[in-house]
């Protein structure tokens, strides 16, 4: 087992100022799906500081290569070939080893391979749109994929999602569980996206924007984007003691 906890204490409380509130009416789907009552804060015990462990034996050799993992032999998906790479760490900057990262995305035409996606953008027979990997020793990870296209979605009359990749992250503790999205530097649709704008702290949006990294591109082949991932950090002492009651 590899996703060793950096220490045994409880996790730092979530900074709710940087997370979207449950009710964010400009994103209409949140209106009926947002709890109205307060979350009950119960802190971290053994069930919150532990979490599932995934091994490399759970994964296939091309699971993190979306150019290869769905394409026919000697065929490639259409679109900009990119590497997305970075480091998964906790809030103290410690790399998280052995963590499962899963991604999903539209193809270069902005179309998802999903029975419910009816967008006019065509499916690409050589592109599935999902990938997964387990972080290395320092929390490092990488995917190879195609840059996803923007797509329109039913919210306002003319809302478009910026190009984005969905990320699902596991840390060593179940209370670190997080799903988020990665955007691309320079995309003019980021600023006007109702989902991006559910994030109340405008500076925090920047944490979700991957940077073009020419140093890691493969010349004449593939561009590279760096996207670093941060999950909640934890105290170094064993369980926090909390007074009873509220």
């Amino acid at each position, binding site marked *: 087992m590899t996703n*060793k*906890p950096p220490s*045994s204490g409880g996790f730092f409380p*979530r900074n709710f100022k940087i*997370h*979207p*509130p*449950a009710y964010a009416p400009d994103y209409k*789907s*949140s*209106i*009926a*799906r*947002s*709890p*109205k*009552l307060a*979350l*009950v804060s*119960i802190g971290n*015990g*053994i*069930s919150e500081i*532990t*979490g*599932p*462990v995934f091994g490399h034996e759970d994964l296939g050799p091309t699971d993190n290569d979306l150019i290869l993992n769905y394409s026919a032999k000697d065929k490639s998906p259409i679109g900009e070939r990119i590497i997305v790479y970075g480091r998964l*760490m906790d*809030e*103290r*900057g410690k790399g998280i080893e052995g963590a499962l990262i899963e991604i*999903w995305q539209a193809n270069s035409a902005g179309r*998802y*391979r*999903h*029975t*419910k996606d009816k967008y006019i953008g065509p499916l690409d027979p050589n592109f*599935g*749109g*999902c990938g*997964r990997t387990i972080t290395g020793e320092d929390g490092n990870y990488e995917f190879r994929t195609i840059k996803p296209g923007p797509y329109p979605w039913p919210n306002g009359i003319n809302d478009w999602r910026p190009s984005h990749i*969905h990320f*699902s992250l596991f840390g*060593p503790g*179940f*209370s670190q*569980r*997080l*799903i*988020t*999205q990665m955007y691309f530097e320079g995309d003019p649709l980021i600023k006007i996206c109702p989902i991006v704008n*559910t994030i109340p702290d405008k500076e925090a949006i920047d*944490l*979700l924007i991957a940077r073009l990294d020419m140093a890691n591109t493969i010349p004449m082949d593939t561009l590279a984007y760096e996207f670093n991932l*941060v999950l909640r950090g934890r*105290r170094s*002492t064993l*369980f*926090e*003691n909390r007074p009873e009651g509220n």
Partner: protein
Amino acid sequence: MTLSPKIYQELPSQTAGPYVHIGCTPQTAGLETIYGGSHLGSKMINEKTLGTRISINGKIFDGTGTPIKDGIIELWQADAQGLFNSPAENRGEPDRNFQGWGRQPTDILTGEFHFDTIKPGRIPYLSTSKLQAPFISIWVAARGINLGLHTRMYFPEEVEANSEDPVLNRLEHQNRINTLLAKPITDGMYQFDIVLQGENETVFFDI
């Protein structure tokens, strides 16, 4: 031990969107062949897993009473002895035939989810020696949910343990405890519905 300064910020959450099944349960999105044909967390138990077999069925309802069909639901739980299969578990040797984690989609047509697992053992509350009633930790993500929601499922037959449970006793609104109790269907079968909003809104936790 010295504390290192906190210098990085957790990434902001973003909704899982309508197509979370592609990434987390791809077979149910139409990618039948990928990842060897099954998703992680699809099978929680094998023949050697210790403990009482149970199954859990349920739906997740939005504020209008409509079941959501584009969500995922994850379980995290102790084994039959109350131990977690995780590197941070230092109280004993957990059952290696039980990972303790499961993941299922809400069905794309009906919204129903289904798990086959075991009834967990009791675990202590925070750093105390006081035992909690048996429960399963649950996490829900879907379109329209901006930050994944944590809740717990407790067992209706554990009347005494539930009445002494420190988490259930902490709830300011004691009339909401029933939102955390599964309904018995037949032996070993439970129904656990999650209500995101409105009357009988499920208790969600900040953990």
